[in-house]
């Protein structure tokens, strides 16, 4: 298997140009997301969804205008993948999480399973869609379209270990420069999803950017639940058997 790769999105150098949104759509043929003026700063695509796989958030604060490009986190422990009954969602050789549109039957189980609200069913065809980290490009040795286009290198692509080192160095530099509010999000393997393949350097609390502060893989308790379910079913079988046995008597 190839090395695990990912995105490090450094919002401290994001200029909010949305090249990532467009480059993603051009490469992946993602439809437009409707022409809706949202009156929420310069954000008119709203959030990640079936038709927006990169989304730039604009946060207006007193004296600051924060921008950050959000994307599927490609979780270490990905609930979407755990719950997919068809095998449409799978983990690639790059340790990324991808939906196969030729297998997806549109059941939608993945949608509530995602702790980040990333994956969504497209109304026009019923299937679930999200960022593939340009899986086809990766297989040709190319970087994802968004990372390639990003004018300021706010979106960096590469081996995850290397990105984590780069992010740590960047964080250290920002802290040394007095930017105390800088923090990393999703880089820790200790978090509720086992770390994400796409992680971020933020300049405020994650909630400010519309990110869950402590994401937890929704299938974390699945093995436990299965044990419970298994026990219960044995008990049930026993009970039913007892009934049958009882009735024969």
């Amino acid at each position, binding site marked *: 298997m190839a090395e695990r790769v990912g995105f490090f999105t450094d919002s401290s*150098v994001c200029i909010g140009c949305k090249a990532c949104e467009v480059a993603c759509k051009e490469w992946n043929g993602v439809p437009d997301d409707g022409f809706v003026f949202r009156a929420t700063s310069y954000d008119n695509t709203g959030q990640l969804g079936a038709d927006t796989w990169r989304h730039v958030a604009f946060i207006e604060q007193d004296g600051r205008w924060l921008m950050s490009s959000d994307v599927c986190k490609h979780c270490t422990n990905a609930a979407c993948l755990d719950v997919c009954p068809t095998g449409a969602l799978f983990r690639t050789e790059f340790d990324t999480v991808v939906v196969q549109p030729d297998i997806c039957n549109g059941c939608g189980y993945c949608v509530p399973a995602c702790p980040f609200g990333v994956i969504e069913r497209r109304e026009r065809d019923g299937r679930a869609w999200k960022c593939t980290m340009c899986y086809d490009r990766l297989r040709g040795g190319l970087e994802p379209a968004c990372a390639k286009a990003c004018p300021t290198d706010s979106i960096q692509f590469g081996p995850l270990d290397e990105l984590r080192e780069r992010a740590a160095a960047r964080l250290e530099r920002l802290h040394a420069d007095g930017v105390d509010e800088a923090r990393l999000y999703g880089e820790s393997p200790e978090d509720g999803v086992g770390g994400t393949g796409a992680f971020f350097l933020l300049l405020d609390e994650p909630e400010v950017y519309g990110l869950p502060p402590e994401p937890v893989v929704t299938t974390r308790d699945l093995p436990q639940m299965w044990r419970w379910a298994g026990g219960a079913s044995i008990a049930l079988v026993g009970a039913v058997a007892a009934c049958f046995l009882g009735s024969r008597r």
Partner: protein
Amino acid sequence: MAECHPVGFQWVMEARLRGAKVFHIDPRFSRTSAVADRYLPIRAGTDIVLLGALINHVLSNELYFREYVLAYTNAATLVSERFRDTEDLDGLFSGFDPETRRYDPSSWAYEGDEGATTDEMREGGVCHAEAAGSDSYGARGAGASATPPTDPTLRHPRCVLQVLKRHFARYTPEMVAELCGIPPEDFAELAEAITANSGRERTTAWVYSVGWTQHSVGAQYIRAAAILQLLLGNIGRPGGGIMALRGHASIQGSTDIPTLFNLLPGYLAMPHAQRHEGLAHYLETEGADTGYWGHRRSYLVSLLKAWWGDAATEDNDFCFGYLPRLTGDHGHYTTVMGQIDGTVKGYFVIGENPAVGSANGKAQRLGLANLDWLVVRDLTLVETATFWKNGPELETGELRTEDIATEVFFLPAASHVEKEGTFTNTQRLLQWREKALDPPGECRSDLWFYYHLGKRIRQRLGDDEIDRPAKELTWDYPEEGEHREPSAAAVLREINGTGPDGRALSSYRELAPDGSTRCGCWIYCGVYADEVNQAARREPGSRQSWVAPEWGWAWPANRRILYNRASADPDGRPWSARKAYVWWDADRGEWTGHDVPDFDLRKPPDYEPPEGARAEAALAGTDPFIMQSDGKGWLYVPSGLSDGPMPAHYEPHESPVLNTLYGRQANPARRIYDRPENPYNPSGAARFPYVFTTSRLTEHHTAGGMSRTLAYLAELQPELFCEVSPQLAGEVGLVNGGWATIVTSRTAIELRVLVTDRVRPLRVQRQIIHQVVVPYHWGHEGLVTGDVANDLLPVVLDPNVYIQESKAGTCAVLPGRRPRGQALLDLIEEYRHG
């Protein structure tokens, strides 16, 4: 810059990571402000106050780069005794004629030079100014003495440095606070930063866009920046300069090879009926004999030979008489008025959309509606092509489709990937594009269109005298492919020029005055050197030096920084190791360095010109500004500008504020169109209390033809909106996400409202001034539509280059949507008359 040139901005972000400090000065808090170290909001239209105060700060605290200033600028030159400053005449320079609202610039001359410009027909004179003559200085300054009297001690009261000192003395931090709305402590931080970051070891760069040019004093904004940068030694050096960021792929190229009324290729002036009697007289009056402009006969004769070939001979002045003559202003807005008046009958609009992109859109459309015929070439049906079907005047009843006589031809254009050719980018870099595929359907390149149109026209012409210039024109380019596309490479080779042997020339230094060479644009000579398309060079950036000289080709002579002789000290040594760029190699007896030296390669630093020397030989080894007649950077402009030898702050034509610097409210020489189609808001009228300015968004492109038509861009910014502060929203009753109507004397438009803290009300002259910022990309065609922001603007022009004042005006703001039909006209009428 982050907002409109995001990919160029990567270098600024990288510089920041290396410790550079970025100030963003703008009426609007944009994406650039968001990542700058400091954002200074400024009232639109007051930048000369700020720049003037920085100049004053540098001069009065002796912070200028003395060695550089003394050796390379005209600081020591003495100005005529006849000159009177705005200090003496309360906001006017000497020579103003209130009748014609024009300056006679003869009193601005250097001492001893006064006689040279007394003739109003000459360069710098009134006729010159009326034909936007100042605009011809894209490659040089006006003619002036090469050896004017000087005072190297810089103490003479009439030396340029002292003149500047007095002129800018009233530009104080207090004035900056009072007019710009920038508090003194913020000004002090900026002043400290730029002076500390200039000198031998460091350089500071200024970057601007149309926020500096689209004013009734636009050219003087740039002059002010030039003065500051020359004083600080930031011109001709790496990391210095004044960068113009231009918004169209080849807007620089369309100035160099001008589709502009007043210019011939290479910044040669178009001949003027009153000013030029023939070739000899033209050459005598256009520029000086010293400096590289001294070779202008070679440049012009080679151009005439490129155009008229063997028909152009010494005996017939090389067909100079075939050139049509100007008699004044024939610029865009005067042309539009000519359309309304019926003198202009036929109009070609090529990849441009004046119905949305030009000031006073109604005047534009009324002009279009009064043509005999109109040809529009574009990728999509832009508003200029559909004004008769879908224009706002149809809704108001001012026009009726059935009454519009204009015959309209829409011809679909080839896109940038369906043709080959060069763009010249904002750094004067020519880059050749390979053709990827044929254009679809009836789409054709503009090269194809003009070449085949020319062929057809030539077939239709007779043997009349008036037809000779077109009949004798060289018009034979190799044709390629099934569409018979003319060879763009052949055209580029003609632009480059050929020698007596028919081979491509390598440099403009090879151009001859006798008609033995041909060259379509002298500054581009060398782009086809050695019969190789140098603009097509693509040596990867990673495999060459940081100057990257082997990627494309920059005019002139592939120099990447102009006037780079100034990167070395007068003795030819780099000012510092850190800022080394080009320098004199005494052992080899030539200039060398990281870039192509912008200097005679073998002229030593101690060269002194002999008496009576001409052209470059008349410039000393310490004169870096080789296109100037005296080889100096001009802190003071003795000739060539129409509105003064130094910048002075005047309020925009429409302003809610009084000019407290002078008794003159607005630029006295500004160009006004006093016509019913172009009513102005009275300055200071209470019913237009807010400052209005237009802007651009990252997600869209100019008038929108290449962005509002694309789903991937349209969805990112789907509607026209205005940005207002919470205070203004409260004052007017605007709600975020709701609607607003903006009113001027021209029209009213409706927009969605974005209430944001980013827009900060300014304290100016003890009152609060609100600014309304509107992106101008919308119109009535495309996937997303909206009112045309430029419809709000009046036509009032800078007197040097005739650019319109789009970046500062006044307006009223009302809550809700605008009225329709006649009710809209009634509303405007009401506002017009108060």
